[in-house]
């Protein structure tokens, strides 16, 4: 076989690989959306789930997913931003910085089930809270923090040096420069990264199994006092999220319409993640345009 033929065959193989991957994605989305979208109805989204009868919805799971995500991001964004500022601005090259960098790496590569087990030990058993939204959100914080730190560090590092130097040259202190120059300039990329991370958190289930639990108490959506047991805003109640719901109906469900509920939930989950992806792209560029007045 001469080298020209080998070259052609190899090119063919690479094109075939690309086609396989593209058709894989098309197939996956076709399956999820075609089977799932027809299950999604107003009733499905607004009625509570049931363990026994068919025709139940995912109202509480959907709310829990967003609420857990919200609490997680409230904790993660300040911590991750602080960590990112430290890594980009304050960290001096040396042992301690190396240790912190290794810690970020270790946290990023931990299996999510291990984080779930840590959450069970720390936020469920040790604190005596039981399965709670707060425990789930804290476990997801461990899961999400390394991503947020990297995103903020990269965003702050890409701010042009001249901006920082001009600010320091005007006699502004380091922290004030960080606050008023670096963070606002890095804001669009931090926001994009945060929304992408939110998509990842939204679909996470393994870390939540043992921390936020597999059940949701009866919720009263007219009760907005977060300190009562039936309030949806109570952070000390167990909460089954949408991703956990898909897993639990498939593996332990007793309802007769497992397929329909799982198909519908999977479609809702994937659509939400897609929306997060789209938002990340559009909001990032919109904010960037608005802040820098570029076209």
């Amino acid at each position, binding site marked *: 076989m001469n*080298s020209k033929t*080998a*070259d052609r065959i*190899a090119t063919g193989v*690479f*094109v075939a*690989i*690309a086609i396989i*991957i*593209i058709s*894989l994605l098309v197939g*996956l*989305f076709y*399956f*999820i959306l075609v089977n799932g979208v027809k299950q999604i109805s107003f009733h499905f989204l607004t009625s509570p789930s049931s363990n026994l009868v068919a025709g139940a919805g995912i109202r509480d799971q959907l709310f829990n997913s967003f609420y857990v995500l919200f609490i997680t991001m409230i904790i993660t964004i*300040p*911590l991750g*931003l*602080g*960590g990112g*500022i*430290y890594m980009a601005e*304050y960290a001096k090259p040396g042992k301690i910085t190396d240790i*912190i960098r*290794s*810690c970020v*790496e*270790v946290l990023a590569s*931990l*299996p*999510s*089930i291990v984080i779930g*087990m*840590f959450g069970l*030990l*720390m936020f469920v*058993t040790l604190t005596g809270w039981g399965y709670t939204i707060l425990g789930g959100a804290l476990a997801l914080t*461990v899961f999400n923090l*390394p991503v947020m*730190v990297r995103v903020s560090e990269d965003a702050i590092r890409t701010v042009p040096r001249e901006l920082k130097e001009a600010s320091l040259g005007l006699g502004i*202190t380091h*922290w*004030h420069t*960080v606050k008023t120059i670096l963070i606002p300039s890095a804001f669009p990329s931090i926001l994009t990264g945060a929304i992408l991370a939110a998509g990842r958190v*939204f*679909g996470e*289930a*393994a870390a939540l*199994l043992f921390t936020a639990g597999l059940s949701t108490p009866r919720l009263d959506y007219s009760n907005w006092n977060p300190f009562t047991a039936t309030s949806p805003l109570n952070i000390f109640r167990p909460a089954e999220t949408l*991703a956990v719901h898909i*897993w639990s109906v*498939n*593996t332990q469900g007793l309802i007769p319409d497992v*397929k329909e509920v*799982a198909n519908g939930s*999977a479609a809702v*989950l*994937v659509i939400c*993640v897609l929306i997060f*992806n789209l938002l990340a792209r559009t909001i990032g560029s919109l904010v960037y345009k608005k802040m820098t007045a570029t076209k």
Partner: protein
Amino acid sequence: MERLAPAKDRLLKSEKNWMNGEVRGKIIVFLCAFIMIAATISITIFLGQKGLQAFIKNGVSLIEFLTSKAWNPSNQPNPLFGALPFIFGSFAVTFLSAIIAAPLGIGAAIFMTEIAPSWGRKILQPVIELLVGIPSVVYGFIGLTVLVPFVRNHIGGLGFSLLSGMIVLSIMILPTITTIATDAMSSLPNSLREGSYALGATRWQTIRKVLVPAAMPTLLTAIVLGMARAFGEALAVQMVIGNVSKFPHSILDPSATLTTIITLNMGNTTFGSIENNVLWSMGFILLVISFAFILIIRYLSSRRKF
């Protein structure tokens, strides 16, 4: 009427506030960095302490735990704690899925960087990003509803098998491998390509003899990162692998991994019992192996040439 403080005092005071802001900022930022160290150390200590309890307090033999094939914790009065089938299952699905995903991922990376750098990348990049975005339970669910019946009807066995787990995992780690491999290939200096073409090599010869060897350490990093992800994946595998505590003899046999046994049994066992403590030991093994993966990646990136 209140007398104003002398200018000297006011200036000193304002300077003090100003310094306080500076110090406060620094403290906040250092605290955030410290939290990360604290989280890592506490995860290691807590899981380590809990994971060793089965051996120290309950007297389970470490040798039996790591080498015996018999697993039956509820067999009274003689419970058996051989976790080898799960350790083997974990490694088996990890390596098998890497064997499928590595050629596909690296092939896709080469397609994006060498074969069709302009339009190929424009199409494949978003495809890969979308694949990353699909949550793992959705992969598991599709595996359960499509792949398991397909394997049962067309290939054989129950459908719940190592094969199904391996296929689901290979799709899940494909984007990880592709993304890092693409970065590796596109960071190669152009002079390598030009030099090879100038010597009369074809594109395939350039890829095979010049570019892939040059990018090898990073390509291996990509594969190891993919394997680390496969090793720790729990729910998607749990839904398709069958969760049988027997040692699998063929790729079509149902099996179980460390993560799936933890997922299944953590909720059904009493906290503090032996049955529960051995699950924590498995979690500790997961932790140790993910440290091992990091060390391998460190070693590989120290050998990176470009």
